[in-house]
């Protein structure tokens, strides 16, 4: 075991891990955050706390992670390269670990163009792979990126993202290999709607034995409505929502669409569970945290193991 | 202002519009004397600076007359001229000169009637617009 992370313990014990996410509020509303987090209590092994997701300003992922931790859940602290340089990142990582946050996810971050501050400078002092390397060196070598010794190194369980659906496809397995070489302990993937394409990517992953070097958590998202499915299909860069999914959402009346979205999600999880090399499921129920329990129940992911 | 006679500069391409002007002359088609023709080897030869200078010197209107689309003697001079005219129109607005005072027109060498008609229409349009603000300012 590299860390004290509960997620690592679950994975190391060979259980199928379950994570979900909780977006911090757009204002000083800790109560709202707590309310959302409560839906996930005892349902998942770790809760991703997004970092100014879609480049919209929100309560910091560090503060929100701490609030969630106080509620007894296990936050998965997300850090993007968009908003912080390496000094700020390392400071926050030390801060996070000092507050008992031991699991994190290293991301490039959505471009500011998509958010409510398109006029802001994108930082990108280092990229996500370099961040992974930095966090690994902080943990394993006890040094800062600049080389100096850290007095009390943060022992982070290091996560990274992978998008099997972005282009160029042939490079996607190689990019995963680079993340693992840099020090990624686990991977959470982009939402999977196109299972055959994900299977193809996993084939490449297994060929290179990458699933043995790092835990892969397959990402899923329940569609709330036909509109949401269409939006993801057409408007979100790097998302692959096949026509069958959109058609299936369209085939049921509006009031039944949410239920259909959950059913599709559950069916997807069932398929993903059978794929060799998948170590866990990451459920991204965006502003729909109350549905995670139902999804987990129906997909046979409950109760969560005690480790 | 009731005696306002606009001064209009027409940059006419040698191969089409200028020949069309000749044709209008030989067919004895009348067109307003307000139009001062400047012959150019191709409408694409007309630079933004030529157009702007014409306004600076007090022209009330300017038009660039090139060959019909696809018929430029130099392949694409007329389409380039069209883009340049659009660009200068924006610049005129920035300066504070109505962009309607500048136009791009096309015609073939045989279109004497079209030449006379265009000259008349543009003269009437500029007459309605009144003197260019630059001419007015120069007069003060």
């Amino acid at each position, binding site marked *: 075991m590299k860390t004290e992370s509960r997620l690592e313990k679950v994975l190391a014990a060979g259980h199928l891990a379950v994570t979900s996410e909780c977006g911090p509020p757009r204002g000083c509303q800790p109560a709202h955050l707590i309310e959302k987090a409560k839906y996930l209590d005892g349902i998942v092994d770790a809760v991703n706390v997004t970092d100014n997701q879609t480049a919209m300003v929100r309560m910091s992922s560090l503060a929100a992670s701490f609030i969630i931790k106080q509620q007894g859940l296990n936050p998965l602290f997300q850090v993007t390269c968009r908003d912080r340089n390496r000094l700020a990142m390392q400071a926050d990582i030390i801060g996070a670990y000092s507050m008992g946050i031991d699991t994190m996810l290293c991301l490039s971050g*959505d471009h500011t163009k998509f958010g409510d501050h398109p006029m802001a400078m994108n930082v990108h002092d280092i*990229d996500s792979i370099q961040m992974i390397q930095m966090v690994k060196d902080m943990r394993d070598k006890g040094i800062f990126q600049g080389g100096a010794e850290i007095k009390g190194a943060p022992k982070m369980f290091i996560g990274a993202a992978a*998008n099997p659906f*972005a*282009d160029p496809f042939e*490079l996607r397995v190689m*990019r995963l290999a*680079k993340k693992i070489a840099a020090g990624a302990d686990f991977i959470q993937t982009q939402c999977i709607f196109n299972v055959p394409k994900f299977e193809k990517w996993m084939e490449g992953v297994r060929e290179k034995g990458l699933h043995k070097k790092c835990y892969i958590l397959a990402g899923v998202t329940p569609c709330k409505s036909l509109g949401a499915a269409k939006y993801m299909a057409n408007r979100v860069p790097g998302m692959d929502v096949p026509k069958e999914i959109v058609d299936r959402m369209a085939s049921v009346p509006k009031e039944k669409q949410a239920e259909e979205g959950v059913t599709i999600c559950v069916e997807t999880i069932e398929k993903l569970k059978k794929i060799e090399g998948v170590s866990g499921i990451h459920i991204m129920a965006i502003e729909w945290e109350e549905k995670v329990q139902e999804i987990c129940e129906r997909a046979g992911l409950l109760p969560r193991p005690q480790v | 202002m009731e005696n306002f006679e606009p001064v209009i500069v027409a940059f006419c391409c040698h191969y089409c519009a200028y020949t069309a002007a000749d044709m209008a002359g030989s067919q004895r088609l009348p067109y307003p004397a307000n139009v001062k023709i400047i012959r150019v080897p191709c409408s694409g030869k007309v630079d933004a600076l030529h157009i702007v200078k014409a306004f*600076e010197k007090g022209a009330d209107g300017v038009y660039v007359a090139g060959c019909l689309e696809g018929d430029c003697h130099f392949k694409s001079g007329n389409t380039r001229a069209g883009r340049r005219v659009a660009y200068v129109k924006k*610049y005129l607005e920035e300066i504070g000169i109505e962009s309607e005072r500048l136009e791009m027109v096309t015609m073939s060498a045989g279109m004497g009637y079209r030449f006379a008609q265009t000259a008349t229409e543009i003269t009437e349009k500029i007459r309605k617009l009144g003197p260019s603000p630059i001419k007015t300012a120069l007069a003060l």
Partner: protein
Amino acid sequence: MITAERKPLEELIEYIKPFKRILLLGCNECVTVCAAGGRKEVGLLASGLQMAMLKNGSNIDIRQHTLERQCDPEYVEELVPMLDGAEAIMSMACGCGVQQLAMRFKDKPVFPAVNTKFMGASERQGVWAERCQGCGNCLLGMTGGICPIARCAKQLMNGPCGGSTGGHCEISEEVDCAWQLIWDRLKALGQTDMYLENIPAKDWRPGGGSGPRKIIREDLAE
């Protein structure tokens, strides 16, 4: 080349309003090539400014001149006899030219007439695109001759983000994904192994991280 675009006339008029006589200066280098501040653009701007001022009921005497290079003191020196009577200078050169003038002529206000944009190349007639950010430590040798710092919206040094779709960047269909271009090049060159190597965190000091940069060539410097 260093690319630039003319500022809106309105902003330029605000600068020169207080003056009766100005010198408008072009540059024969980069800004001529990108049609922003060469001899022709000086003529166009002088004419436009003159008309706009005239319309506002004021007169301004604009002398025009274009230097071979505004960023070299030797050429700037040529201006000395021309400055007689000029109350201010407006420069159509890039920011380097403007500052060279400001340093040399300490008693004259110098105004920029263009917005300096980026180091770029011509894609085709009338289209210039960013190619270099002057990071001071070129890594084109590792990236198939295509720069991820200047051409990836996130400056990613180790591959494309999850937003790369059909060869274009997530920010716009008009923008190529730099890493798609790099990957295509590496494949064509049989150098795909180069991609597998992790490029470590960049030292930004040569790229301006340690303050304003300077090059001193001992053999040339006087």
